[in-house]
C-alpha cells in the first residue's frame, strides 16, 4: 500500500479477484485496510467501503449471472481532494446500457410488503460524489468518485 506515495502516482491499491461473495468480501476488507493506512477513517471510510461493496456485489450477482464467476479488478487512487475507485469486469452490461437510476425502494406499505433488496444502486448513487459507467469491447468500467475529506452523504 503506497500510503505515503504522492497523489497522482501509484494507486493506493490495485486488487483483483474472482467475483464470488467471499472473494469480494476480502476485497472490501483490503480496501478498508488501505483506506485506514492512508488516514481515511470514520464516516468517509464507511461510505466508501459500503458503496464499493454494493458495486462488487452487483458484479457478483448480476454481472456474471448465468455464467461462471469471472474476474473483477479494482484500482483505488488518492487524489488531492478526491478518492477514485475504478472497478472493471467482463460481465454483462448494464440493463439498457445505462447506469440503473438508484431509486429508493418503497417501504411505505405493510410489513409483509417491505423491500428486502433493490437498495444497491440507491446506496451507490447516494454515497458517490460522481459516478460513471463505460462499456467497451465486453468490459465494464465503473468509476466511483468520493470526496477525500468530507462525509459524502447527500441529504
Amino acid at each position, binding site marked *: 500500500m503506497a500510503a505515503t506515495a504522492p497523489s497522482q502516482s501509484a494507486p493506493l491499491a490495485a486488487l483483483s479477484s474472482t467475483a464470488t461473495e467471499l472473494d469480494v*468480501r476480502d476485497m472490501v476488507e483490503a480496501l478498508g485496510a488501505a483506506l485506514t493506512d492512508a488516514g481515511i477513517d470514520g464516516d468517509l471510510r464507511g461510505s466508501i467501503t459500503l458503496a464499493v461493496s*454494493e458495486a462488487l456485489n452487483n458484479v457478483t450477482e448480476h454481472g456474471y449471472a448465468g455464467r461462471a464467476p469471472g474476474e473483477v479488478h479494482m484500482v483505488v487512487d488518492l487524489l488531492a481532494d478526491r478518492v477514485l475507485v475504478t472497478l472493471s469486469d467482463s460481465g454483462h452490461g448494464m440493463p439498457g446500457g445505462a447506469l440503473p437510476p438508484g431509486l429508493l425502494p418503497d417501504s411505505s406499505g405493510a410489513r409483509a410488503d417491505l423491500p428486502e433488496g433493490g437498495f444497491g444502486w440507491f446506496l451507490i448513487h447516494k454515497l458517490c460524489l460522481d459516478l460513471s459507467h463505460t462499456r467497451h469491447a465486453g468490459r465494464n468500467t465503473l468509476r466511483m468518485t468520493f470526496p477525500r475529506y468530507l462525509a459524502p452523504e447527500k441529504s
Partner: protein
Amino acid sequence: MQLTCATHNNIKVITVEDNRIDAASAIRFKDEMRTLTDDGADHVLLDLSGVAFVDSSGLGAIIASMKQMGDGRRLDLAGLTPDVAKVFRLTRMDSIFVIHKDMAAALQRAAG
C-alpha cells in the same frame, strides 16, 4: 454466521457475534434468525453492537428476519455502530425498526 441468544425481562436478545452481515453471510443470517425466532417470542431484540459492517444484502436479511416473524411480533434493534446506523438511515429503514442506542437502553425502556 454466529448468533447467541439470551432472555432478559421477557425479551429475547439475539446477539450477532460476527462483525459483518454482508452478501456472503446474509442468507445464513436469515436462516439462523428463523431458527432462533421460531419459538414465538413476542419481543425480540437484535444486538448489533459487535457488527461493524452491514451492506444492502445484510440489511435485506434483517428486514426479512422481521417479516418472517409475522405481524404482531416485534424485532427491535440495538447497538448500531456508525456505519450500520448509516445504512438504516439512508434507506429510511430507521423509521421501520425501533432502534435503541444500546442494550441497557433497550431493556430499560422495555422494563419502564
